[in-house]
């Protein structure tokens, strides 16, 4: 006995983390939270699959056009220069996730994470083909037969088709989807488009069809650190041990209190519905993704028994132990303040963004040249980016050195909306006006029709070294 025990203890960590996985067959649930999730899944999948087809002013409304290096989001166009906005957006998303986690625990996991959403969709297909939990288990135990093969084949076929569609739409977020559709239908996909459709499709099939809860347990970084955001006022799914224990089966209508039993009828339904295969009655565990399936199913049982609901429920540690709950804890306040500050800063700077970019590239072939008149000449290529939605003409001015000569376009540089124009210029300077071998230049660019659109960019003018 002792020997067996020690062995078990030694084995436990290994088994827990790396045991060969037993397939989990989550039983279907109905109820309040299940319908929340169903609605959530429907909305999120709808956004994912239909989003790229949304049109705006004759183009794809939301397009992260990687081939063209431009992001279109409704009215806005973002360029690689605007990377800072993307970074700010990611920070906002992260803090929002922290805030939600501190308040309501793993609601992200239970209702909105792509892993949950697609697993839910795959489970739905699985149930349509193979039937309920018990028929799925029976099917898997049974030997191979034509009927079993047909069911399995249908399931995987549907899963794969759905996955390929997912991969296709994925690529459609990053490259114009109307043309992508045309190219797909005429078998003219580029090799990399084809590759990424397959790659993403395969990842979907693997994660939602096969890996499922293992992604949460072994691969998800959020699952590892979310508990750091928890405190005693965070909503968690919990079993009311005081009320439930001692558990035990009983006849309906029996006076269980007289029998010395608690409210838990030990039907094990909460275990059967759990997508991660745990027993919530053992206490809060890191595997619990907070999907509330056990809450729904237990409430159903309590209803049938005529008991009070919420033996398993969303609650907080403080509520369970009868302490006062508070909403605005320091960490919540800090998250909210941070979130508001960064959001306001981001919106403010987007509103003030000058939709004009200028890159100055020095001619690489020579540092400088002496002209016949004895002037020093530098050659530059200007790249003017019009990030606005209108065409603009820009006037150019250069300062920093006295009496510099520059050949300028008379009518300004015309750049169409959302395009880049490269424009070579020559700047000539009298060597007497050069104090050092490298002098700073300032390039001013401003739109002729809008004074608000103007920028200045530094450049360098190189010349011979003077004593």
């Amino acid at each position, binding site marked *: 006995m002792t020997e067996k025990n020690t062995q078990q203890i030694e084995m436990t960590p290994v088994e827990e983390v790396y045991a060969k996985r037993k397939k989990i067959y989550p039983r279907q649930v109905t109820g309040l939270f299940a319908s929340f999730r169903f609605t959530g899944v429907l909305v999120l999948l709808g956004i994912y699959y239909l989003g790229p087809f949304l049109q705006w002013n004759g183009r794809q409304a939301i397009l992260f056009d990687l081939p063209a290096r431009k992001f279109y989001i409704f009215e806005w166009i973002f360029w690689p220069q605007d990377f800072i906005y993307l970074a700010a957006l990611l920070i906002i998303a992260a803090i929002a996730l922290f805030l939600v986690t501190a308040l309501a625990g793993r609601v992200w996991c239970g209702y909105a994470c792509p892993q949950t959403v697609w697993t839910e969709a795959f489970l739905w297909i699985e149930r349509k083909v193979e039937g309920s939990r018990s028929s799925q288990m029976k099917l898997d135990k049974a030997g191979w037969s034509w009927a079993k093969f047909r069911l399995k084949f249908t399931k995987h076929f549907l899963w794969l088709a759905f996955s390929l569609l997912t991969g296709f739409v994925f690529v459609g977020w990053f490259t114009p989807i109307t043309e992508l559709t045309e190219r797909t239908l005429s078998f003219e996909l580029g090799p*990399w488009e084809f590759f990424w459709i397959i790659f993403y499709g395969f990842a979907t099939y693997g994660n939602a069809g096969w890996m499922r809860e293992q992604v949460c347990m072994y691969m998800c970084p959020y699952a590892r650190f979310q508990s750091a955001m928890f405190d005693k006022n965070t909503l968690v799914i919990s079993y009311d041990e005081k009320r439930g224990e001692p558990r035990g089966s009983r006849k309906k209508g029996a006076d269980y209190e007289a029998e010395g039993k608690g409210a838990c009828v030990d039907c094990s339904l909460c275990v059967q519905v759990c997508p991660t295969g745990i027993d919530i009655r053992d206490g809060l565990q890191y595997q619990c993704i907070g999907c509330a399936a056990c809450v729904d199913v237990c409430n159903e049982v309590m209803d049938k028994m005529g008991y009070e609901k919420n033996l398993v429920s969303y609650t907080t540690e403080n509520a369970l132990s009868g302490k006062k709950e508070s909403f605005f804890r320091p960490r919540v306040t800090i998250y909210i303040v941070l979130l508001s500050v960064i959001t306001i800063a981001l919106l403010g700077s987007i509103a003030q963004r000058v939709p004009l970019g200028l890159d100055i590239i020095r001619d690489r072939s020579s540092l400088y040249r002496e002209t016949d008149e004895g002037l020093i000449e530098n050659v530059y290529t200007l790249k003017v980016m019009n990030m606005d939605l209108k065409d603009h003409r820009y006037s150019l001015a250069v300062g920093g050195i006295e009496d510099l000569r520059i050949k300028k376009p008379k009518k300004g540089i015309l750049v169409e909306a959302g395009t880049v124009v490269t424009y070579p210029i020559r700047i000539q300077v009298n060597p007497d006006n050069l104090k050092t071998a490298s002098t700073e230049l300032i390039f001013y660019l401003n739109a002729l029709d809008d004074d608000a659109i103007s920028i200045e960019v530094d450049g360098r003018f190189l010349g011979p070294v003077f004593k």
Partner: protein
Amino acid sequence: MPGKNNSVPKVQRFVAILWPSFVVSGIATVLFFTAFDPDEVIGCVGGWDISRMGYYSVGFFLFWLLTSLNSVLTCYFLKPCSKS
């Protein structure tokens, strides 16, 4: 060398090597190609005729190769030295 009590199955070790490096190379790819336009950088030295999508993808896999190499080394050095 790991003996029979090396408890981590091969598959898990593959995941532990390939998955984190996948994530990191994704981030690296985004940062790298935000800073450099492959068409310009490679176009300058007279590159091959591939689309930007191709450059991104190849870049991603090169990063993945490097980062997983890193993970492999980490895994390797994590193994205890033989005590003989």
